[in-house]
Protein backbone atom coordinates (compact mmCIF):
# COMPACT_ATOMS: atom_id res chain seq x y z
CA UNK A 1 0.00 0.00 0.00
CA UNK A 2 1.44 3.33 -0.99
CA UNK A 3 1.80 6.06 1.57
CA UNK A 4 -1.08 8.04 0.14
CA UNK A 5 -3.38 5.05 0.19
CA UNK A 6 -2.30 4.16 3.69
CA UNK A 7 -3.11 7.69 4.82
CA UNK A 8 -6.55 7.45 3.26
CA UNK A 9 -7.07 4.07 4.89
CA UNK A 10 -5.94 5.21 8.32
CA UNK A 11 -7.91 8.43 8.12
CA UNK A 12 -11.00 6.40 7.27
CA UNK A 13 -10.52 4.43 10.45
CA UNK A 14 -9.83 7.44 12.65
CA UNK A 15 -12.78 9.36 11.22
CA UNK A 16 -15.06 6.36 11.54
CA UNK A 17 -14.11 5.97 15.18
CA UNK A 18 -14.52 9.60 16.17
CA UNK A 19 -17.69 10.25 14.22
CA UNK A 20 -19.04 6.84 15.18
CA UNK A 21 -18.43 7.29 18.88
CA UNK A 22 -20.12 10.70 18.87
CA UNK A 23 -23.09 9.36 16.91
CA UNK A 24 -23.18 6.46 19.34
CA UNK A 25 -23.25 8.78 22.35
CA UNK A 26 -26.17 10.80 21.04
CA UNK A 27 -28.06 7.74 19.89
CA UNK A 28 -27.50 6.07 23.25
CA UNK A 29 -28.88 9.15 24.97
CA UNK A 30 -31.92 9.11 22.72
CA UNK A 31 -32.45 5.38 23.07
CA UNK A 32 -32.19 5.48 26.87
CA UNK A 33 -34.93 8.10 27.01
CA UNK A 34 -37.06 6.32 24.43
CA UNK A 35 -36.52 2.90 25.95
CA UNK A 36 -37.55 3.97 29.41
CA UNK A 37 -40.15 6.69 29.09
CA UNK A 38 -41.11 6.22 25.44
CA UNK A 39 -40.10 9.73 24.61
CA UNK A 40 -38.77 10.12 21.07
CA UNK A 41 -36.96 13.32 21.86
CA UNK A 42 -36.92 15.31 18.63
CA UNK A 43 -35.16 18.06 20.56
CA UNK A 44 -32.09 15.86 20.99
CA UNK A 45 -30.32 17.77 18.24
CA UNK A 46 -31.14 21.07 19.95
CA UNK A 47 -29.83 19.72 23.25
CA UNK A 48 -26.73 18.63 21.40
CA UNK A 49 -26.24 22.10 19.97
CA UNK A 50 -27.12 23.71 23.28
CA UNK A 51 -24.26 21.80 24.90
CA UNK A 52 -21.92 22.88 22.12
CA UNK A 53 -23.01 26.52 22.37
CA UNK A 54 -22.68 26.60 26.16
CA UNK A 55 -19.21 25.15 25.72
CA UNK A 56 -18.44 27.88 23.21
CA UNK A 57 -19.63 30.63 25.57
CA UNK A 58 -17.62 29.22 28.46
CA UNK A 59 -14.41 28.78 26.53
CA UNK A 60 -14.47 31.61 24.01
CA UNK A 61 -16.35 34.29 25.93
CA UNK A 62 -15.41 33.50 29.50
CA UNK A 63 -12.02 31.97 28.85
CA UNK A 64 -12.63 28.79 30.85
CA UNK A 65 -10.40 25.84 29.97
CA UNK A 66 -12.25 23.52 27.57
CA UNK A 67 -11.89 20.50 29.84
CA UNK A 68 -13.53 22.31 32.75
CA UNK A 69 -16.13 23.75 30.41
CA UNK A 70 -16.98 20.25 29.19
CA UNK A 71 -17.59 19.06 32.73
CA UNK A 72 -19.65 22.14 33.55
CA UNK A 73 -21.77 21.71 30.43
CA UNK A 74 -22.57 18.09 31.26
CA UNK A 75 -23.29 19.22 34.82
CA UNK A 76 -25.73 21.87 33.57
CA UNK A 77 -27.75 19.20 31.79
CA UNK A 78 -28.76 17.59 35.08
CA UNK A 79 -30.79 20.43 36.65
CA UNK A 80 -32.10 21.21 33.17
CA UNK A 81 -33.35 17.65 32.70
CA UNK A 82 -34.87 17.44 36.14
CA UNK A 83 -36.54 20.81 35.61
CA UNK A 84 -38.02 19.73 32.30
CA UNK A 85 -39.03 16.42 33.77
CA UNK A 86 -40.75 18.12 36.67
CA UNK A 87 -42.58 20.74 34.63
CA UNK A 88 -43.49 18.80 31.50
CA UNK A 89 -42.32 15.26 31.03
CA UNK A 90 -43.86 13.66 34.07
CA UNK A 91 -47.35 14.77 33.08
CA UNK A 92 -47.40 12.13 30.38
CA UNK A 93 -46.03 9.09 32.19
CA UNK A 94 -49.40 7.35 32.18
CA UNK A 95 -50.88 8.73 28.99
CA UNK A 96 -51.71 6.09 26.39
CA UNK A 97 -49.76 6.60 23.15
CA UNK A 98 -47.51 8.88 25.09
CA UNK A 99 -44.76 8.58 22.51
CA UNK A 100 -46.81 10.80 20.20
CA UNK A 101 -47.51 13.30 22.99
CA UNK A 102 -43.84 13.32 23.79
CA UNK A 103 -42.93 13.79 20.17
CA UNK A 104 -45.15 16.86 19.97
CA UNK A 105 -43.77 18.11 23.24
CA UNK A 106 -40.21 17.73 22.05
CA UNK A 107 -41.10 19.52 18.83
CA UNK A 108 -42.35 22.39 20.96
CA UNK A 109 -39.08 22.42 22.88
CA UNK A 110 -37.22 22.29 19.56
CA UNK A 111 -39.07 25.37 18.34
CA UNK A 112 -38.36 27.29 21.53
CA UNK A 113 -34.67 26.46 21.51
CA UNK A 114 -34.44 27.22 17.80
CA UNK A 115 -35.97 30.61 18.46
CA UNK A 116 -33.63 31.33 21.34
CA UNK A 117 -30.54 30.25 19.40
CA UNK A 118 -31.54 32.27 16.34
CA UNK A 119 -32.06 35.39 18.41
CA UNK A 120 -28.77 35.05 20.28
CA UNK A 121 -25.95 32.95 18.88
CA UNK A 122 -27.37 33.11 15.36
CA UNK A 123 -26.68 36.83 15.22
CA UNK A 124 -23.11 36.52 16.38
CA UNK A 125 -21.77 34.02 13.91
CA UNK A 126 -22.64 31.35 11.41
CA UNK A 127 -19.90 29.11 12.72
CA UNK A 128 -18.50 28.31 16.12
CA UNK A 129 -15.24 26.81 17.16
CA UNK A 130 -13.89 25.84 20.55
CA UNK A 131 -10.23 25.94 21.48
CA UNK A 132 -8.69 22.45 21.45
CA UNK A 133 -8.44 20.38 24.63
CA UNK A 134 -4.81 19.59 23.89
CA UNK A 135 -2.52 20.79 21.13
CA UNK A 136 0.01 18.95 19.02
CA UNK A 137 -0.04 16.20 16.44
CA UNK A 138 0.63 12.49 16.76
CA UNK A 139 1.70 10.39 13.81
CA UNK A 140 -0.10 7.09 13.43
CA UNK A 141 2.05 5.54 10.73
CA UNK A 142 2.13 8.17 8.02
CA UNK A 143 -1.12 9.79 9.19
CA UNK A 144 -0.85 12.91 11.31
CA UNK A 145 -3.70 13.08 13.81
CA UNK A 146 -4.39 16.09 16.00
CA UNK A 147 -4.00 15.13 19.65
CA UNK A 148 -7.24 16.96 20.28
CA UNK A 149 -9.10 14.47 18.10
CA UNK A 150 -7.47 11.54 19.85
CA UNK A 151 -8.46 13.05 23.19
CA UNK A 152 -12.07 13.47 22.06
CA UNK A 153 -12.10 9.88 20.87
CA UNK A 154 -10.68 8.61 24.14
CA UNK A 155 -13.25 10.60 26.13
CA UNK A 156 -16.15 9.44 23.99
CA UNK A 157 -15.14 5.81 24.32
CA UNK A 158 -14.61 6.16 28.08
CA UNK A 159 -18.05 7.70 28.52
CA UNK A 160 -19.58 4.86 26.52
CA UNK A 161 -17.71 2.30 28.61
CA UNK A 162 -18.73 4.00 31.84
CA UNK A 163 -22.31 4.01 30.65
CA UNK A 164 -22.20 0.30 29.95
CA UNK A 165 -20.77 -0.36 33.37
CA UNK A 166 -23.42 1.81 34.98
CA UNK A 167 -26.28 0.11 33.20
CA UNK A 168 -24.91 -3.37 33.84
CA UNK A 169 -23.47 -3.24 37.32
CA UNK A 170 -24.88 -0.34 39.29
CA UNK A 171 -28.23 -0.68 40.96
CA UNK A 172 -29.51 2.53 39.33
CA UNK A 173 -28.52 1.15 35.98
CA UNK A 174 -30.16 -2.16 36.71
CA UNK A 175 -33.33 -0.36 37.75
CA UNK A 176 -33.35 1.58 34.49
CA UNK A 177 -32.85 -1.60 32.51
CA UNK A 178 -35.58 -3.38 34.41
CA UNK A 179 -37.99 -0.58 33.51
CA UNK A 180 -36.79 -0.77 29.90
CA UNK A 181 -37.83 -4.37 29.73
CA UNK A 182 -41.13 -4.24 31.48
CA UNK A 183 -42.44 -1.38 33.48
CA UNK A 184 -45.12 -3.36 35.32
CA UNK A 185 -42.84 -6.24 36.14
CA UNK A 186 -40.21 -3.82 37.39
CA UNK A 187 -42.77 -2.13 39.62
CA UNK A 188 -43.72 -5.51 41.04
CA UNK A 189 -40.10 -6.23 41.77
CA UNK A 190 -39.92 -3.12 43.90
CA UNK A 191 -38.30 -0.75 41.41
CA UNK A 192 -39.42 2.83 41.87
CA UNK A 193 -40.56 3.29 38.30
CA UNK A 194 -41.14 7.06 38.43
CA UNK A 195 -37.75 7.71 39.98
CA UNK A 196 -36.14 5.54 37.38
CA UNK A 197 -37.95 7.54 34.69
CA UNK A 198 -36.56 10.86 35.81
CA UNK A 199 -33.17 9.27 36.25
CA UNK A 200 -33.18 7.87 32.72
CA UNK A 201 -34.33 11.20 31.34
CA UNK A 202 -31.49 12.97 33.08
CA UNK A 203 -28.97 10.30 32.17
CA UNK A 204 -30.02 10.22 28.53
CA UNK A 205 -29.78 13.98 28.22
CA UNK A 206 -26.43 14.07 30.00
CA UNK A 207 -25.13 11.62 27.40
CA UNK A 208 -26.51 13.78 24.58
CA UNK A 209 -24.86 16.82 26.14
CA UNK A 210 -21.61 14.90 26.39
CA UNK A 211 -21.93 14.06 22.70
CA UNK A 212 -22.58 17.72 21.91
CA UNK A 213 -19.63 19.11 23.78
CA UNK A 214 -17.27 16.44 22.42
CA UNK A 215 -18.50 17.17 18.91
CA UNK A 216 -17.84 20.86 19.46
CA UNK A 217 -14.35 20.05 20.67
CA UNK A 218 -13.61 17.93 17.61
CA UNK A 219 -15.35 19.97 14.92
CA UNK A 220 -16.51 23.44 14.12
CA UNK A 221 -20.28 23.61 14.19
CA UNK A 222 -23.23 25.79 13.39
CA UNK A 223 -26.90 25.86 14.32
CA UNK A 224 -27.95 23.61 11.43
CA UNK A 225 -26.15 20.67 13.03
CA UNK A 226 -29.20 20.26 15.29
CA UNK A 227 -31.58 18.77 12.74
CA UNK A 228 -28.99 16.62 11.06
CA UNK A 229 -28.13 15.17 14.42
CA UNK A 230 -31.77 14.58 15.39
CA UNK A 231 -32.44 12.63 12.24
CA UNK A 232 -29.19 10.69 12.47
CA UNK A 233 -29.85 9.77 16.10
CA UNK A 234 -33.36 8.58 15.27
CA UNK A 235 -32.08 6.56 12.34
CA UNK A 236 -29.45 4.91 14.51
CA UNK A 237 -31.98 4.18 17.21
CA UNK A 238 -34.40 2.59 14.76
CA UNK A 239 -31.76 0.39 13.17
CA UNK A 240 -30.25 -0.58 16.48
CA UNK A 241 -33.62 -1.30 18.02
CA UNK A 242 -35.18 1.29 20.33
CA UNK A 243 -34.05 0.89 23.88
CA UNK A 244 -31.02 -1.15 22.90
CA UNK A 245 -27.89 0.60 24.12
CA UNK A 246 -25.64 -1.96 22.51
CA UNK A 247 -27.54 -1.54 19.24
CA UNK A 248 -27.14 2.23 19.37
CA UNK A 249 -23.41 1.92 19.96
CA UNK A 250 -22.81 -0.61 17.20
CA UNK A 251 -25.03 1.09 14.63
CA UNK A 252 -23.62 4.51 15.61
CA UNK A 253 -20.15 3.19 14.87
CA UNK A 254 -21.33 1.68 11.59
CA UNK A 255 -22.82 5.05 10.62
CA UNK A 256 -19.55 6.77 11.42
CA UNK A 257 -17.58 4.29 9.36
CA UNK A 258 -20.06 4.40 6.51
CA UNK A 259 -19.74 8.17 6.27
CA UNK A 260 -15.98 7.82 6.30
CA UNK A 261 -15.57 4.75 4.10
CA UNK A 262 -18.18 5.03 1.37
CA UNK A 263 -16.83 8.41 0.45
CA UNK A 264 -13.44 6.90 -0.39
CA UNK A 265 -15.00 4.83 -3.15
CA UNK A 266 -17.95 7.05 -4.04
CA UNK A 267 -18.99 10.60 -3.28
CA UNK A 268 -19.87 11.75 0.24
CA UNK A 269 -23.42 12.28 -0.99
CA UNK A 270 -23.68 8.60 -1.82
CA UNK A 271 -22.51 7.92 1.74
CA UNK A 272 -25.43 9.91 3.09
CA UNK A 273 -27.86 8.06 0.84
CA UNK A 274 -26.29 4.73 1.70
CA UNK A 275 -26.92 4.82 5.40
CA UNK A 276 -30.41 6.13 5.00
CA UNK A 277 -30.99 3.41 2.44
CA UNK A 278 -29.59 0.82 4.83
CA UNK A 279 -32.05 2.03 7.38
CA UNK A 280 -34.98 1.55 5.05
CA UNK A 281 -33.85 -1.95 4.15
CA UNK A 282 -33.51 -2.91 7.78
CA UNK A 283 -36.89 -1.46 8.59
CA UNK A 284 -38.45 -3.48 5.82
CA UNK A 285 -36.78 -6.77 6.62
CA UNK A 286 -36.12 -6.60 10.33
CA UNK A 287 -38.40 -3.89 11.64
CA UNK A 288 -37.68 -4.46 15.29
CA UNK A 289 -34.13 -3.33 14.68
CA UNK A 290 -30.98 -5.36 14.59
CA UNK A 291 -30.49 -5.53 18.32
CA UNK A 292 -34.05 -5.58 19.54
CA UNK A 293 -34.41 -6.56 23.13
Amino acid at each position, binding site marked *: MSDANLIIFLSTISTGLILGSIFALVAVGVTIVYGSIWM*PNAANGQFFVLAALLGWTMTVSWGIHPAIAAILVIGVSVPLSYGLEYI*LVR*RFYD*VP*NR*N*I*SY*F*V*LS*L*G*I*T*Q*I*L*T*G*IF*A*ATYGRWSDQFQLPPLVSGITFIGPLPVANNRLMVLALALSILAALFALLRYHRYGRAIRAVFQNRDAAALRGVNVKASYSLSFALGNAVIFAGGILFALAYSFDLTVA*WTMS*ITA*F*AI*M*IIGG*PGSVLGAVIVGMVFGFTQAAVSTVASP*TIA*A*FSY*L*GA*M*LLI*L*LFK*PSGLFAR
Partner: protein
Amino acid sequence: MTPVTEKKDLSLLAKGHGLPLACFAVVAFATPFLLSGNRYFAFVAGVTMIHILWASGMNLLYGYTGLMPLMFAGLAGISAYTVVGLTASGWSFWLALPVGALAASISGIILGLPSLRLKGFYFTLCSLVIQTVVTLGFIYFSGLTNGDTGISQIPLPSMGGGQPLSGLAYDLVLSAAAVIGVIVLIVIVKSTLGRRLIAIREDDELAGMLGINVTGYKMIAFFIGSLFAGVGGALYAPYIGFISPRSFDVLISMNIWLMVAFGGRGTIWGPVIGAILLAPLSFLLQEYYTVKDILYGLLIIAVIVLMPAGIAGGFLRKKKESAPPLDVPATPRGAK
Protein backbone atom coordinates in the same frame (compact mmCIF):
# COMPACT_ATOMS: atom_id res chain seq x y z
CA MET B 1 -84.08 -0.73 20.54
CA THR B 2 -82.94 -2.04 17.21
CA PRO B 3 -79.30 -1.44 16.42
CA VAL B 4 -78.98 1.50 14.13
CA THR B 5 -78.17 0.40 10.63
CA GLU B 6 -75.22 1.44 8.54
CA LYS B 7 -77.49 3.57 6.42
CA LYS B 8 -79.12 5.37 9.28
CA ASP B 9 -75.70 5.84 10.78
CA LEU B 10 -74.51 7.41 7.57
CA SER B 11 -77.31 9.89 7.17
CA LEU B 12 -77.09 10.85 10.82
CA LEU B 13 -73.42 11.64 10.57
CA ALA B 14 -73.68 13.28 7.20
CA LYS B 15 -76.33 15.50 8.64
CA GLY B 16 -73.89 16.33 11.42
CA HIS B 17 -71.46 17.69 8.82
CA GLY B 18 -73.90 19.35 6.48
CA LEU B 19 -74.13 22.64 8.33
CA PRO B 20 -70.43 23.10 9.06
CA LEU B 21 -69.66 22.09 5.49
CA ALA B 22 -72.06 24.69 4.14
CA CYS B 23 -70.53 27.32 6.45
CA PHE B 24 -67.03 26.33 5.47
CA ALA B 25 -67.84 26.43 1.75
CA VAL B 26 -69.42 29.86 2.09
CA VAL B 27 -66.44 31.20 4.03
CA ALA B 28 -63.95 29.57 1.69
CA PHE B 29 -65.52 31.07 -1.41
CA ALA B 30 -66.33 34.41 0.17
CA THR B 31 -62.84 34.99 1.56
CA PRO B 32 -61.13 35.66 -1.80
CA PHE B 33 -63.82 38.21 -2.62
CA LEU B 34 -63.65 39.86 0.78
CA LEU B 35 -59.88 40.06 0.63
CA SER B 36 -59.65 40.91 -3.05
CA GLY B 37 -58.82 44.49 -2.12
CA ASN B 38 -55.62 43.35 -0.51
CA ARG B 39 -53.53 40.94 -2.54
CA TYR B 40 -51.38 40.13 0.46
CA PHE B 41 -54.15 38.95 2.74
CA ALA B 42 -55.73 37.19 -0.20
CA PHE B 43 -52.41 35.44 -0.76
CA VAL B 44 -52.18 34.39 2.89
CA ALA B 45 -55.72 33.06 2.61
CA GLY B 46 -54.79 31.18 -0.55
CA VAL B 47 -51.81 29.55 1.14
CA THR B 48 -54.11 28.67 4.02
CA MET B 49 -56.50 26.95 1.60
CA ILE B 50 -53.65 24.80 0.31
CA HIS B 51 -52.83 23.93 3.90
CA ILE B 52 -56.43 23.00 4.59
CA LEU B 53 -56.20 20.57 1.69
CA TRP B 54 -52.90 19.22 2.97
CA ALA B 55 -54.13 18.96 6.54
CA SER B 56 -57.18 17.03 5.35
CA GLY B 57 -54.95 14.57 3.49
CA MET B 58 -52.70 14.22 6.50
CA ASN B 59 -55.80 13.77 8.61
CA LEU B 60 -56.92 10.85 6.49
CA LEU B 61 -53.59 9.17 7.11
CA TYR B 62 -52.87 10.29 10.65
CA GLY B 63 -56.31 10.95 12.08
CA TYR B 64 -58.23 8.13 10.46
CA THR B 65 -55.71 5.44 9.56
CA GLY B 66 -53.32 5.98 12.44
CA LEU B 67 -50.25 6.42 10.25
CA MET B 68 -48.11 9.45 10.87
CA PRO B 69 -46.24 10.09 7.64
CA LEU B 70 -43.69 12.84 8.08
CA MET B 71 -42.73 12.56 4.42
CA PHE B 72 -46.01 14.22 3.46
CA ALA B 73 -44.37 17.44 2.29
CA GLY B 74 -41.93 15.37 0.26
CA LEU B 75 -44.89 13.87 -1.62
CA ALA B 76 -46.27 17.33 -2.27
CA GLY B 77 -42.82 18.23 -3.56
CA ILE B 78 -42.71 15.28 -5.95
CA SER B 79 -45.96 16.48 -7.46
CA ALA B 80 -44.84 20.11 -7.56
CA TYR B 81 -41.58 19.28 -9.31
CA THR B 82 -43.38 16.98 -11.75
CA VAL B 83 -45.93 19.64 -12.63
CA VAL B 84 -43.34 22.38 -12.98
CA GLY B 85 -41.18 20.12 -15.12
CA LEU B 86 -44.07 19.13 -17.37
CA THR B 87 -45.39 22.65 -17.82
CA ALA B 88 -41.87 23.84 -18.61
CA SER B 89 -41.74 21.28 -21.40
CA GLY B 90 -44.96 22.61 -22.84
CA TRP B 91 -47.71 20.70 -21.08
CA SER B 92 -50.84 22.48 -19.98
CA PHE B 93 -50.97 22.92 -16.22
CA TRP B 94 -54.35 21.27 -16.11
CA LEU B 95 -52.98 18.14 -17.75
CA ALA B 96 -49.85 18.20 -15.64
CA LEU B 97 -51.77 18.52 -12.37
CA PRO B 98 -53.34 15.06 -12.45
CA VAL B 99 -50.06 13.54 -13.62
CA GLY B 100 -48.20 15.22 -10.77
CA ALA B 101 -50.82 14.23 -8.23
CA LEU B 102 -50.67 10.68 -9.51
CA ALA B 103 -46.88 10.73 -9.24
CA ALA B 104 -47.27 11.79 -5.61
CA SER B 105 -49.81 9.02 -5.02
CA ILE B 106 -47.63 6.33 -6.51
CA SER B 107 -44.65 7.61 -4.56
CA GLY B 108 -46.86 7.68 -1.49
CA ILE B 109 -47.70 4.02 -1.93
CA ILE B 110 -44.04 3.10 -2.39
CA LEU B 111 -42.75 5.27 0.44
CA GLY B 112 -45.63 4.08 2.60
CA LEU B 113 -44.56 0.45 2.25
CA PRO B 114 -42.68 0.47 5.57
CA SER B 115 -46.02 1.14 7.25
CA LEU B 116 -46.95 -2.45 6.46
CA ARG B 117 -44.20 -3.72 8.69
CA LEU B 118 -43.84 -0.89 11.17
CA LYS B 119 -46.36 0.00 13.77
CA GLY B 120 -47.29 3.35 15.20
CA PHE B 121 -44.53 5.64 16.09
CA TYR B 122 -41.90 3.41 14.58
CA PHE B 123 -43.27 4.23 11.17
CA THR B 124 -43.24 7.91 12.02
CA LEU B 125 -39.55 7.83 12.77
CA CYS B 126 -39.01 5.90 9.58
CA SER B 127 -40.98 8.43 7.56
CA LEU B 128 -38.89 11.19 9.09
CA VAL B 129 -35.85 9.57 7.60
CA ILE B 130 -37.65 8.97 4.28
CA GLN B 131 -38.44 12.68 4.16
CA THR B 132 -34.78 13.44 4.69
CA VAL B 133 -33.87 11.15 1.80
CA VAL B 134 -36.50 12.77 -0.42
CA THR B 135 -35.12 16.23 0.41
CA LEU B 136 -31.58 15.04 -0.30
CA GLY B 137 -32.92 13.63 -3.55
CA PHE B 138 -34.41 16.99 -4.53
CA ILE B 139 -31.01 18.53 -3.95
CA TYR B 140 -29.01 15.75 -5.54
CA PHE B 141 -30.92 15.29 -8.77
CA SER B 142 -30.39 18.88 -9.71
CA GLY B 143 -30.84 18.10 -13.38
CA LEU B 144 -34.54 17.65 -12.69
CA THR B 145 -35.05 19.94 -9.72
CA ASN B 146 -32.35 22.56 -10.15
CA GLY B 147 -31.02 21.49 -6.75
CA ASP B 148 -31.22 23.71 -3.73
CA THR B 149 -31.26 26.74 -6.00
CA GLY B 150 -34.88 26.06 -6.64
CA ILE B 151 -36.98 26.97 -9.63
CA SER B 152 -38.21 30.54 -9.86
CA GLN B 153 -40.67 32.37 -12.03
CA ILE B 154 -42.99 29.42 -12.34
CA PRO B 155 -45.62 30.55 -14.84
CA LEU B 156 -49.23 30.82 -13.76
CA PRO B 157 -51.61 28.21 -15.16
CA SER B 158 -53.67 29.48 -18.06
CA MET B 159 -57.42 29.73 -17.97
CA GLY B 160 -59.57 29.22 -21.00
CA GLY B 161 -58.67 31.73 -23.68
CA GLY B 162 -54.98 31.85 -22.84
CA GLN B 163 -55.50 34.23 -19.94
CA PRO B 164 -53.28 33.42 -16.96
CA LEU B 165 -55.06 32.21 -13.87
CA SER B 166 -54.20 34.92 -11.41
CA GLY B 167 -55.49 36.92 -8.51
CA LEU B 168 -59.06 36.25 -7.54
CA ALA B 169 -59.50 33.39 -10.01
CA TYR B 170 -56.54 31.48 -8.61
CA ASP B 171 -57.73 32.11 -5.05
CA LEU B 172 -61.12 30.69 -5.96
CA VAL B 173 -59.50 27.61 -7.46
CA LEU B 174 -57.65 27.10 -4.16
CA SER B 175 -60.86 27.57 -2.18
CA ALA B 176 -62.54 25.02 -4.41
CA ALA B 177 -59.65 22.61 -3.88
CA ALA B 178 -59.93 23.00 -0.11
CA VAL B 179 -63.71 22.55 -0.13
CA ILE B 180 -63.54 19.55 -2.45
CA GLY B 181 -60.79 18.08 -0.29
CA VAL B 182 -62.92 18.36 2.83
CA ILE B 183 -65.96 16.92 1.02
CA VAL B 184 -63.90 13.98 -0.24
CA LEU B 185 -62.65 13.40 3.28
CA ILE B 186 -66.18 13.47 4.68
CA VAL B 187 -67.39 11.05 2.03
CA ILE B 188 -64.49 8.69 2.72
CA VAL B 189 -64.85 8.85 6.46
CA LYS B 190 -68.55 8.16 6.28
CA SER B 191 -68.19 5.33 3.83
CA THR B 192 -67.31 1.77 4.67
CA LEU B 193 -63.78 2.65 3.56
CA GLY B 194 -63.60 5.12 6.41
CA ARG B 195 -64.84 2.51 8.83
CA ARG B 196 -62.18 0.10 7.67
CA LEU B 197 -59.47 2.74 8.06
CA ILE B 198 -60.64 3.61 11.55
CA ALA B 199 -60.59 -0.08 12.44
CA ILE B 200 -57.01 -0.28 11.17
CA ARG B 201 -56.11 2.78 13.22
CA GLU B 202 -57.61 1.31 16.35
CA ASP B 203 -56.13 -2.20 16.02
CA ASP B 204 -54.83 -3.38 12.69
CA GLU B 205 -54.42 -7.00 13.76
CA LEU B 206 -58.00 -7.17 14.96
CA ALA B 207 -59.10 -5.41 11.79
CA GLY B 208 -57.37 -8.07 9.71
CA MET B 209 -59.03 -10.76 11.78
CA LEU B 210 -62.40 -9.22 11.00
CA GLY B 211 -61.70 -9.68 7.30
CA ILE B 212 -60.33 -6.23 6.51
CA ASN B 213 -57.45 -6.28 4.04
CA VAL B 214 -55.14 -4.19 6.17
CA THR B 215 -52.33 -4.03 3.62
CA GLY B 216 -54.68 -3.07 0.83
CA TYR B 217 -56.47 -0.39 2.78
CA LYS B 218 -53.30 1.13 4.15
CA MET B 219 -52.13 1.43 0.55
CA ILE B 220 -55.47 2.95 -0.46
CA ALA B 221 -55.14 5.44 2.39
CA PHE B 222 -51.67 6.32 1.20
CA PHE B 223 -52.89 6.65 -2.35
CA ILE B 224 -55.66 9.06 -1.42
CA GLY B 225 -53.70 10.93 1.25
CA SER B 226 -50.82 11.42 -1.16
CA LEU B 227 -53.27 12.59 -3.79
CA PHE B 228 -54.22 15.42 -1.42
CA ALA B 229 -50.52 16.16 -0.96
CA GLY B 230 -49.99 16.05 -4.70
CA VAL B 231 -52.88 18.28 -5.70
CA GLY B 232 -51.81 20.76 -3.03
CA GLY B 233 -48.20 20.65 -4.21
CA ALA B 234 -49.21 21.17 -7.83
CA LEU B 235 -51.34 24.19 -6.95
CA TYR B 236 -48.73 25.55 -4.56
CA ALA B 237 -45.89 25.82 -7.11
CA PRO B 238 -47.36 28.41 -9.50
CA TYR B 239 -49.16 30.18 -6.68
CA ILE B 240 -45.95 30.93 -4.81
CA GLY B 241 -44.03 31.14 -8.08
CA PHE B 242 -41.01 29.43 -6.59
CA ILE B 243 -40.14 25.98 -5.33
CA SER B 244 -36.99 24.57 -3.80
CA PRO B 245 -36.21 21.54 -1.64
CA ARG B 246 -36.78 23.74 1.40
CA SER B 247 -40.36 24.34 0.29
CA PHE B 248 -41.06 20.66 0.95
CA ASP B 249 -38.74 19.69 3.75
CA VAL B 250 -39.29 17.93 7.02
CA LEU B 251 -40.28 21.13 8.82
CA ILE B 252 -43.18 21.58 6.41
CA SER B 253 -44.25 17.98 7.00
CA MET B 254 -44.20 18.57 10.71
CA ASN B 255 -46.12 21.79 10.33
CA ILE B 256 -48.90 20.07 8.40
CA TRP B 257 -48.97 17.27 10.91
CA LEU B 258 -49.09 19.79 13.73
CA MET B 259 -52.16 21.41 12.16
CA VAL B 260 -53.88 18.03 12.37
CA ALA B 261 -52.72 17.26 15.90
CA PHE B 262 -53.42 20.80 17.04
CA GLY B 263 -56.88 20.92 15.56
CA GLY B 264 -57.81 17.42 16.58
CA ARG B 265 -56.89 14.25 14.74
CA GLY B 266 -59.64 12.03 13.53
CA THR B 267 -62.22 14.79 13.33
CA ILE B 268 -63.17 16.41 10.05
CA TRP B 269 -63.10 19.99 11.25
CA GLY B 270 -60.29 19.92 13.79
CA PRO B 271 -57.51 19.87 11.19
CA VAL B 272 -59.34 22.48 9.12
CA ILE B 273 -59.38 24.75 12.17
CA GLY B 274 -55.76 23.81 12.86
CA ALA B 275 -54.78 24.88 9.35
CA ILE B 276 -56.79 28.10 9.54
CA LEU B 277 -55.11 29.01 12.83
CA LEU B 278 -51.57 27.89 12.17
CA ALA B 279 -50.96 28.40 8.45
CA PRO B 280 -51.29 32.21 8.51
CA LEU B 281 -49.40 32.49 11.78
CA SER B 282 -45.94 32.75 10.27
CA PHE B 283 -47.16 35.47 7.91
CA LEU B 284 -49.02 37.47 10.50
CA LEU B 285 -46.42 37.27 13.25
CA GLN B 286 -43.90 38.89 10.91
CA GLU B 287 -43.18 41.76 13.28
CA TYR B 288 -42.45 39.48 16.19
CA TYR B 289 -39.87 37.45 14.34
CA THR B 290 -37.46 37.28 17.26
CA VAL B 291 -39.98 35.59 19.51
CA LYS B 292 -42.05 33.91 16.82
CA ASP B 293 -40.41 30.50 17.10
CA ILE B 294 -40.60 30.69 20.87
CA LEU B 295 -44.28 31.60 20.79
CA TYR B 296 -44.94 28.80 18.35
CA GLY B 297 -43.14 26.34 20.59
CA LEU B 298 -45.03 27.48 23.66
CA LEU B 299 -48.29 27.14 21.75
CA ILE B 300 -47.44 23.56 20.80
CA ILE B 301 -46.61 22.69 24.38
CA ALA B 302 -49.71 24.39 25.71
CA VAL B 303 -51.91 22.40 23.36
CA ILE B 304 -50.32 19.06 24.14
CA VAL B 305 -50.48 19.69 27.88
CA LEU B 306 -53.95 21.22 28.04
CA MET B 307 -55.73 19.64 25.07
CA PRO B 308 -53.90 16.49 24.05
CA ALA B 309 -56.65 15.55 21.60
CA GLY B 310 -56.44 18.90 19.86
CA ILE B 311 -58.91 21.75 19.82
CA ALA B 312 -61.78 19.81 18.28
CA GLY B 313 -60.88 16.73 20.28
CA GLY B 314 -60.85 18.66 23.55
CA PHE B 315 -64.15 20.27 22.71
CA LEU B 316 -65.82 17.03 21.64
CA ARG B 317 -64.58 15.11 24.62
CA LYS B 318 -66.01 17.71 26.98
CA LYS B 319 -69.30 17.56 25.16
CA LYS B 320 -69.36 13.79 25.35
CA GLU B 321 -68.66 13.82 29.05
CA SER B 322 -71.40 16.30 29.81
CA ALA B 323 -73.99 14.51 27.70
CA PRO B 324 -76.60 12.51 29.61
CA PRO B 325 -75.93 8.79 29.75
CA LEU B 326 -77.34 6.96 26.77
CA ASP B 327 -78.02 3.78 28.67
CA VAL B 328 -81.15 1.99 27.71
CA PRO B 329 -82.38 -0.63 30.13
CA ALA B 330 -81.66 -4.11 28.89
CA THR B 331 -84.54 -6.12 27.67
CA PRO B 332 -85.28 -8.52 30.44
CA ARG B 333 -84.78 -12.05 29.30
CA GLY B 334 -85.35 -15.19 31.18
CA ALA B 335 -82.33 -16.53 32.93
CA LYS B 336 -80.95 -19.81 31.80
